């Protein structure tokens, strides 16, 4: 605690609306009597520039070194007030806020009680202000290069976009050629361009891109370092090398898996999977026995998957176009939600594809090599329909590529229940991983169709660009700090940090201690709580600040 505390309290009555409920001058008068309070001001619109300029001037003129703002929720304008404080020459972290609007006057209709609570809230903020600590801003220079793992359409698109933004990228693909699923799909409906054409266009862009370095038949082994300066060990052929990157994008996609248990059926020459049909359609001129009637079954293993109904629709249309036979799709609800997919469904119907909706899974049997499907048609009031067919196409489930788990654990990245990469927060940060500087794009973390995957690639490219474009990242130095004298190096925090932001370090080249990487740290404070030596202090949320807030429990100022 500074000995010479000069607290400035700035009250805002929200355009005069709060003054109608309570007497701000009375609050001001009470606050002025508190020790260390140098200045109390009332404003009507602290969220506006003019008022903020006045506030800045007051801070300077009155020599205020701790600022308390009593106004609306800090969720709204805390950053703005920090900027004001900073512009007044005071460290931006020496600000404490009291939420007197949303959590007082708006929430409590009883005026007196609301006013009492507001006084208490301001008192708490003042108490907290006494323990505020400055956090210095510094900059860390970063490697302006992005590593993209996975050379499918998502990875390619992200590379092209980053290249257009003038950031260097290295595109690492496991297989011998780029393209991923584009090499396997027979069509990309509802997109009218063929996969070959899409790939050719994209590959041309990759080749022309000044900043894209393609590594095929290559794999990422492991990664050390932190955001801005990762060093990645990459294997290519028999060789291994290490390169530095500022950010890493995972675009490893998905693979499909057929489980015969769901159907109790083994695959054969006339019972095939979507992937096998895809191959057949891709080389349709070589198909000797053209199937006259084809049935698809979808929605059995996972009704909510995008991959299965979409491939059923795409390939039903593909068959109609290439083989012209009878096509029937057996489905539960055939949920589609992407752009153009409803039209794709209508196109299928217009071309004569028959859709049969079931509640109970169809019974499939084989007689003399012929396939017989019995199903109760829901739309025909459950009437039993028997369908013979030449070719039965069964759905597959999408699963993460084999190496997701290994990479996930070597890189300390979260996986979801199915083993796909898990975003930091699906709503707020949909392409961010739990680690700063590592991003996910495409189907390795979400169930997406082609257009959605491309959008995801653009988003992720922008995120990486934002992070690295300046070549430097502003960082708050030691906003969470380990006291090297108190640290027992028990590894508790290193194990507990959800963002893998704490590592071992040596003090004076000798004693081992935990050290927090400022860039990777996301400020949750978990480390400070688990530390058995109480050696870690989050400067914005220190124990002293939190404890100071309930110093006034049971009393109103």
């Amino acid at each position, binding site marked *: 605690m500074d000995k010479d505390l000069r607290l400035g309290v700035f009250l805002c009555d929200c355009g005069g609306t709060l003054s109608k409920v309570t007497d701000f001058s009375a609050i001001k008068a009470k606050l002025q009597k508190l020790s260390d309070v140098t200045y109390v001001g009332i404003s009507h619109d602290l969220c506006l520039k003019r008022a903020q300029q006045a506030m800045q001037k007051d801070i300077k003129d009155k020599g205020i070194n701790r600022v308390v703002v009593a106004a609306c929720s800090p969720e709204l304008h805390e950053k703005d007030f920090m900027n004001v404080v900073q512009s007044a020459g005071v460290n931006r972290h020496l600000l404490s806020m009291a939420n007197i609007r*949303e*959590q007082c006057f708006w929430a409590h209709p009883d005026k007196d009680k609301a006013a009492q609570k507001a006084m208490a809230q301001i008192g708490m903020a003042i108490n907290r202000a006494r323990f505020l600590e400055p956090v210095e801003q510094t900059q860390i220079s970063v490697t302006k290069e992005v590593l993209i793992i996975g050379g499918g359409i998502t990875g390619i698109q992200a590379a092209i976009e980053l290249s257009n933004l003038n950031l260097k990228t290295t595109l690492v693909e496991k297989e011998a050629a780029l393209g991923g699923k584009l090499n396997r799909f027979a069509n990309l409906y509802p997109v009218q361009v063929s996969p070959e054409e899409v790939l050719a266009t994209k590959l041309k862009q990759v080749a022309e891109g000044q900043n894209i370095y393609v590594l095929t038949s290559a794999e990422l082994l492991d990664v050390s370092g932190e955001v801005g300066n990762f060093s990645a060990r990459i294997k290519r052929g028999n060789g291994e090398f290490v390169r530095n990157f500022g950010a890493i994008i995972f675009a490893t996609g998905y693979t499909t898996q057929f489980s015969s248990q769901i159907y109790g059926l083994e695959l054969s020459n006339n019972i095939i999977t979507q992937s096998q049909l895809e191959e057949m359609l891709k080389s349709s001129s070589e198909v000797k026995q053209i199937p006259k009637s084809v049935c698809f079954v979808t929605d059995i293993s996972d009704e909510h998957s995008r991959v299965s109904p979409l491939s059923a629709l795409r390939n039903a249309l593909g068959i109609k176009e290439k083989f012209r036979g009878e096509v029937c799709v057996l489905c539960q609800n055939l949920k589609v939600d992407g752009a153009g997919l409803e039209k794709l469904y209508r196109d299928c119907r217009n071309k004569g594809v028959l859709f049969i909706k079931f509640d109970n899974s169809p019974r499939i049997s084989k007689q003399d090599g012929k396939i017989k499907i019995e199903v109760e048609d829901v739309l025909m009031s459950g009437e039993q329909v028997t369908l013979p067919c030449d070719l039965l196409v069964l759905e597959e489930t999408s699963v993460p590529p084999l190496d997701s788990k290994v990479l996930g654990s070597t890189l300390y990245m979260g996986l979801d229940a199915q083993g796909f990469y898990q975003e930091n927060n699906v709503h707020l940060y949909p392409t961010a991983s739990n680690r700063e500087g590592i991003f996910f794009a495409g189907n390795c973390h979400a169930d997406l169709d082609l257009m959605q995957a491309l959008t995801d690639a653009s988003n992720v490219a922008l995120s990486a660009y934002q992070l690295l474009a300046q070549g430097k990242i502003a960082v708050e130095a030691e906003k969470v700090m380990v006291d090297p004298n108190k640290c027992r190096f028990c590894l508790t925090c290193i194990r507990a940090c959800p963002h893998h932001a704490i590592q071992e370090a040596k003090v004076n080249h000798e004693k081992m201690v935990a050290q927090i990487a400022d860039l990777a740290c996301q400020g949750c404070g*978990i480390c400070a709580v688990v530390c058995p030596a109480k050696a870690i202090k989050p400067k914005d949320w220190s124990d002293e600040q939190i*404890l100071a807030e309930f110093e006034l429990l049971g009393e109103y100022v």
Partner: protein
Amino acid sequence: MKAKGAFLPDIVAFCCAQSAYQSADAAGSMRITYPENIRVIRVPCAGRVDVLHILRAFEKGADGVLVLGCHEEACRHLSGNIRAKNRVQRVNTLLQEVGIDGKRVEMFTLAPNQGPRFARIANEVNERIKELGPSPVKSGA
């Protein structure tokens, strides 16, 4: 000074800034009221709430403590809410050892837009603490 008469419990609610704090704001924005004797303390994550913070709150005269975090699987810091839940359980035991009803500390999860839920939790907990009466630690209790 607090009015004498009916028991108005002092309740400290540690609110995760990612969710519960915003839902408290939402309650206000929607003009949904809740007991004003609940003191909201903003924390960056429910995982920042220390066993010690809760114990100290009781030392300072709290009658009840609430830890409000994000829904499971929705923690920005992956495990912060789970850790908070486990800590609340530990505090229940620590208080029980002291002879204070462990039920005076509770954990709930919310989404940032759940203003009504925030108010409901605040009301329910307030009622429960009222029933339990003043903390036995409090002077004059």
